[in-house]
């Protein structure tokens, strides 16, 4: 009797265990496959989320936010482009997160960081931020972002200046906001103001992924500013724009043309601003799937 029981136990150990481990490995591989070709995510509409949260709306908003940011991070790490549907999901996610907790700062910051530069969905970003302003009425950052969007992306300098003034009135706003708002009204979009904006965002940010992206943007803008400054000096002395930026190097205004970290080539726009063929965005990866 004892031998039989020992025999059965040995059988379990030698056969069942390895079989399970094998199946375990296969199962996880299958799941990885499924997730690779996963469609853009789904978020439950806000009213249902609110009810189902059963009093834990704040916690659910944290969870949904993590889902949104890991969704984007996932695409980013795999170097996959965000499709229009992806962005729709992402935007809607942030809508739901802010419906669950409209005071939550992170979705507004993330929305500003990604919906503008990456998705080019300026109106939606502004809509999100304006919603937040109604609740976070002590927070200067939100009208600041809206103002920036208006002047930098939408070229609406009047509105931009208005929002920045609003931000400047709020407690805790940085000293430079008042002068920035004033200068905006005067200069219109120049790279230098964008530089200051990014420097501030970078200093405040806690997330590594976002930090890297902003460092890059900061770098390209610093270099654009560098070139613009040289360009300005050239204009002051020659009363006209150079034919090509290379002339700035040749005539000694620049030591060398700093490379574009996004891999594009510098040029001058008709209105005299410096731009790059890369448009300050990462190039499309080679089409794989």
């Amino acid at each position: 009797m004892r031998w039989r029981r020992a025999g059965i136990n040995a059988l379990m150990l030698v056969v069942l265990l390895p079989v399970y481990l094998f199946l375990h490995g296969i199962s996880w591989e299958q799941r990885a496959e499924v997730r690779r070709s996963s469609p853009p995510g789904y978020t439950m509409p806000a009213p249902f989320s609110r009810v189902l949260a059963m009093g834990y709306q704040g916690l659910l908003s944290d969870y949904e936010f993590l889902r949104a940011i890991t969704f984007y991070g996932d695409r980013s790490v795999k170097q996959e482009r965000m499709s229009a549907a992806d962005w729709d999901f992402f935007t809607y996610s942030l809508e739901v997160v802010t419906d669950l907790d409209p005071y939550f700062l992170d979705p507004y910051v993330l929305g500003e960081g990604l919906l503008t530069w990456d998705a080019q969905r300026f109106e939606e970003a502004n809509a999100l931020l304006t919603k937040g302003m109604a609740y976070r009425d002590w927070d200067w950052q939100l009208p600041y972002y809206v103002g920036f969007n208006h002047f930098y992306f939408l070229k609406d300098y009047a509105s931009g200046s208005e929002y920045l003034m609003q931000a400047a009135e709020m407690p805790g706003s940085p000293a430079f906001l008042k002068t920035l708002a004033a200068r905006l009204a005067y200069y219109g979009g120049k790279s230098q103001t964008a530089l200051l904006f990014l420097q501030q965002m970078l200093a405040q940010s806690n997330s590594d992924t976002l930090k890297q992206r902003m460092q890059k943007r900061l770098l390209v803008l610093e270099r654009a500013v560098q070139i613009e400054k040289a360009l300005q000096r050239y204009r002051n002395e020659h009363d006209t724009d150079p034919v090509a930026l290379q002339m700035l190097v040749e005539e000694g205004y620049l030591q060398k043309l700093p490379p574009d970290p996004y891999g594009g080539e510098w040029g001058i726009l008709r209105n005299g601003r410096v731009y790059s063929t890369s448009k300050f965005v990462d190039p499309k990866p080679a089409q794989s799937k």
Partner: protein
Amino acid sequence: MLKRVGALALVTCKEGIRDRSLFGILLFALFVLGLNVAVAGFFMRDLGKVTVDMNLAALSFAGLLLVFFIGINLMAKDIDKKTIHLVLSKPFSRGEYIYGKYLGLVLLVVCTLALLLVFSTATVAGVHAMYPAYFGGFTWGVYFWAVAFIALQLALLCAIVVFFSAITTSSFITLIFSVASYLVGVSIEEVLFYLKSQAAAGEVVASETLRTVLEVVAWLVPNFAAFDLKTEAAHGLVLEPARLFTSAAYGAGYILILLWLATLIFRRREFN
């Protein structure tokens, strides 16, 4: 009379505290508190809010488990195992019994919450120390008020448990009804306001009868959202004393009504 009620409360509380399940609940809560420290790093700015969210969730959920499992057990065991015969053989009126058991449950909840609050305070202070820049609006005052109102919510839940225990003989039925009352109480405000906003926007989501039924339900079931200060605590929003007072009075009123009804029903019960 007060001494008797107090003696029963003390005995009930002791029974509850020495229940081994409590240990499991505490472990779970501590686990969430620890998780909170790890999870905070995933967020960008509003770390204070996330920390508060998780802490308050841990405290309130531990309280729920405590009331639904240990609380109901404390009420049902007396009748199942006929310990109530022993208790009622002493000069307890039925009303004193109800109030004594209720206060015992509340005492149990308060003690557990107090213990968890110590750990929670340590966690929040710890995360605060790790990321001081990201604790923008957080104030300890609002945080403690939120915990106090969680305790009030749980006290209300205890009253619901005592009430249903007085009515039914099965602890399972008590559990089902108490959980149902809680779920309805927590979501009724959300549902009603959603329906109202939809109606205002001209969209008809639900029929008139449904809306009326829900409004009746809203009268019967306590609105747990009135005791929910989690958002205020997460962002350090201002609390108006008038609102706090009204909510507390509302809760206390409901508790007293429930206990009074429970006493009425309990007086008519027979114990075989």
